[in-house]
């Protein structure tokens, strides 16, 4: 019953949407594809419309509409559309919901279609980048944005505090977390500014701490995702060290403190390189962009991703997959690279990236962007991530107080999240 309903409404939507949205002519085979995105940026839309126009040259009956949904409500709205029986044909997918979408069977497999597309060169897309979006050897969404985490530094603040600048530490081969925390502490001790901020963490989005704890080789759960690893030694050590940096050393601002690196209020911030656009233009400070420091396990890199997939079992699934192949072919990937760091090895060179990232030097592109994308692991993900995220967040809250018993808190986190992981 459910399926017939879906089919009926799908057919209905296929007829109505073109009429409502663009008044396409009544050609028998007119196809309108809807892609939901969370950017409403004019430049993005212009680029996507350009790509859609290019596709129309070879597929004159196909129109693609891009529907921006506010980021905060993205998954809610998408879910409502799916639940209501009116999913889009294509959708951007957040890395945190990647596992849900990839494992659900809601998305169409892409590998065979991409491989069959002339000039696509699927080999060019790096394996690390596609891992999160692959199940049983099939790609279910294409990672159109693979953005490495790095550290932005405010050299003015570091120098004023008499601390060693990260660039110097790197030159001396001493760019480790211990020295990074020391630099952060030195600035914070001066009282004029804060030390190191993990951007967007806010003591809620704990998965962003992976940009630090991966240096300890820590991971929130086992490889197969079935068992909780918050109580494993690397995680306990990493979080104990982070707790110390926050509460004992004051190297990182505490919970409930609002500090913005880009307003010049902190020495360093861990964030994705795309945030370079936030650097102040009117009243600039001397900034630098450096890779993540070495942890106890040595050098490592972390990337954040966003994917785009096509919904399976829709009347236009095949056309949608074709469009996706077109949108992410080598030529269009270069266009996408203007805004979204690419996952294609052939585009990962300083020349290509320099054209689209004018703020960054060749060296920064080489050491941070290219090295980061080629070697980086993605942020932790899991099926049913939203519930797991929420459960862990709620448990970790007990840790963000000065006298917390870190191992005990982590034990309670595992107690509550363990059953969810085992499902």
């Amino acid at each position, binding site marked *: 019953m*459910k399926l017939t309903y*879906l089919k009926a409404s799908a057919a209905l939507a296929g007829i109505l949407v073109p009429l409502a949205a663009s008044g396409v002519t009544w050609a028998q085979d007119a196809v309108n594809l809807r892609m939901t995105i969370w950017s409403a940026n004019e430049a993005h839309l212009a680029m996507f419309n350009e790509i859609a126009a290019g596709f129309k040259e070879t597929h004159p009956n196909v129109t693609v509409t891009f529907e921006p949904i506010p980021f*905060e409500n993205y*998954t*809610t709205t998408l*879910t*409502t559309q*799916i*639940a209501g029986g009116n999913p889009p044909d294509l959708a951007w997918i957040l890395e945190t919901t990647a596992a*849900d*979408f990839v494992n*659900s*069977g*809601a998305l169409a497999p892409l590998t065979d279609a991409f491989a069959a597309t002339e000039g696509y060169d699927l080999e060019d897309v790096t394996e690390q980048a596609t891992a999160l979006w692959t199940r049983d050897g099939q790609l279910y969404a294409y990672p159109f944005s693979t953005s490495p985490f790095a550290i932005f530094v405010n050299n003015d603040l570091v120098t004023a505090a008499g601390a060693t600048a990260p660039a110097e530490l790197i030159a001396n081969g001493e760019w480790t977390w211990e020295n990074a925390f020391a630099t952060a502490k030195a600035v914070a001790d001066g009282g004029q500014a804060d030390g190191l901020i993990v951007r967007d963490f806010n*003591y*809620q989005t704990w998965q962003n701490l992976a940009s630090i704890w991966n240096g300890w080789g820590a991971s929130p759960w086992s490889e197969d995702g079935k068992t909780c690893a918050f109580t494993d030694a690397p995680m306990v050590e990493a979080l104990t060290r982070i707790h110390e940096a926050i509460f004992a050393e004051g190297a990182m*601002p*505490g*919970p*409930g*403190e*609002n*500090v913005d690196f880009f307003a010049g209020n902190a020495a360093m911030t861990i964030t994705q390189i795309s945030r370079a656009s936030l650097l102040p233009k009117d009243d600039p400070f001397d900034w630098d962009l450096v890779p993540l420091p070495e942890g106890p396990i040595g050098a490592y890199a972390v990337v954040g991703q966003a994917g785009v997939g096509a919904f399976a079992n829709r009347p236009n699934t095949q056309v949608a997959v074709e469009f996706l192949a077109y949108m992410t072919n080598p030529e269009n990937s270069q266009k996408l690279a203007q805004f979204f760091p690419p996952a294609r090895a052939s585009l990962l060179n300083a020349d290509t990236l320099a054209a689209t990232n004018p703020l960054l030097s060749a060296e920064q592109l080489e050491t941070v962007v290219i090295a980061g994308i080629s070697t980086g692991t993605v942020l932790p993900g899991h099926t*049913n991530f*939203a*519930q797991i995220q*929420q459960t862990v*967040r*709620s448990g970790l*809250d*007990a840790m*963000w107080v000065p006298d917390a018993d870190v191992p005990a808190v982590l034990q309670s986190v595992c107690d509550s999240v363990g059953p969810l992981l085992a499902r």
Partner: protein
Amino acid sequence: MSLATEKETRPFWTIARRDAAAGYLFIAPQLIGIVIFVLIPLGLVFWYSLHEWNVLANSFNYVGAANYQMLLADPSLPQVLTASAIFSAGLVVLNLSLALLLAVLLDQKLKGIVVFRTLFFSPVVVSLVAWTIVWSFLLQNNGGINGMLSAFGIEGPNWLRTPTTAMISVVVVQVFKNVGLNMILFLAALQGVPKELYEAARVDGAGAFKQFRRITLPLISPTILLTSIITIVGSLQVFAQIAVLTQGGPGMSTTVLVYYLYQQAFQFHFFGYGSTLSILLFVIVAVLTFAQWQLRKRVVFYEN
């Protein structure tokens, strides 16, 4: 035939019948709207609540009362219901008393009172997003409020990160945003109180406080009832502010029922269980409103 005999004795369209027909015609648009846009969707929600519905996996299986058993066994539910009760009770008490205080102040004959009315009302029309962001700013540990307190030598708490103060904060932010509506309702009620009554009381030697307690409060009691119903019902529907300010934390201290429902249905994709929580929310609101409605007969001064 029976119709014909009836016609002979008295006309079919008696005044009562004509009135009844008019009554049904008058309420028809509203009633049909309620059936289509409230009752049928509510029935569907109940229908969903009997299913295990994972939206992404497109599974929709009848599971009978399983979701309701899950509800009874849900270890988070007691916490969530407690948080909801504290939130709603705090909100209603604070909102109504502040609204009444403001209404009494704004009822005075003062120059420029219109300006004050407008300013106290202004948060009602300000975008919720902007409103919540500013407050999340002010409530930071190093934020404006603690800055102000430190000027008086007081070390303020970490408002949004301590369970008790987090709850206080979400209540207060919500009250400031919406108290203007209740304030206006109270102001209107105060202006409807006949002035002669006060004069008579003054002649009898009653002071301002006594006048307020003996005359004002009883006479505006219907408004108090109405605003308290609206406010309680409204308080059970607040979640955007909680999402921005605390995300239901720390721990689960500010996870109220509607936020929990929202998480289960829209963030965790458990539509079946989310629907079950919706039914629970609906039952709670209905019982509360019914209780208040019954209470009016005893507490409210008069209604006709």
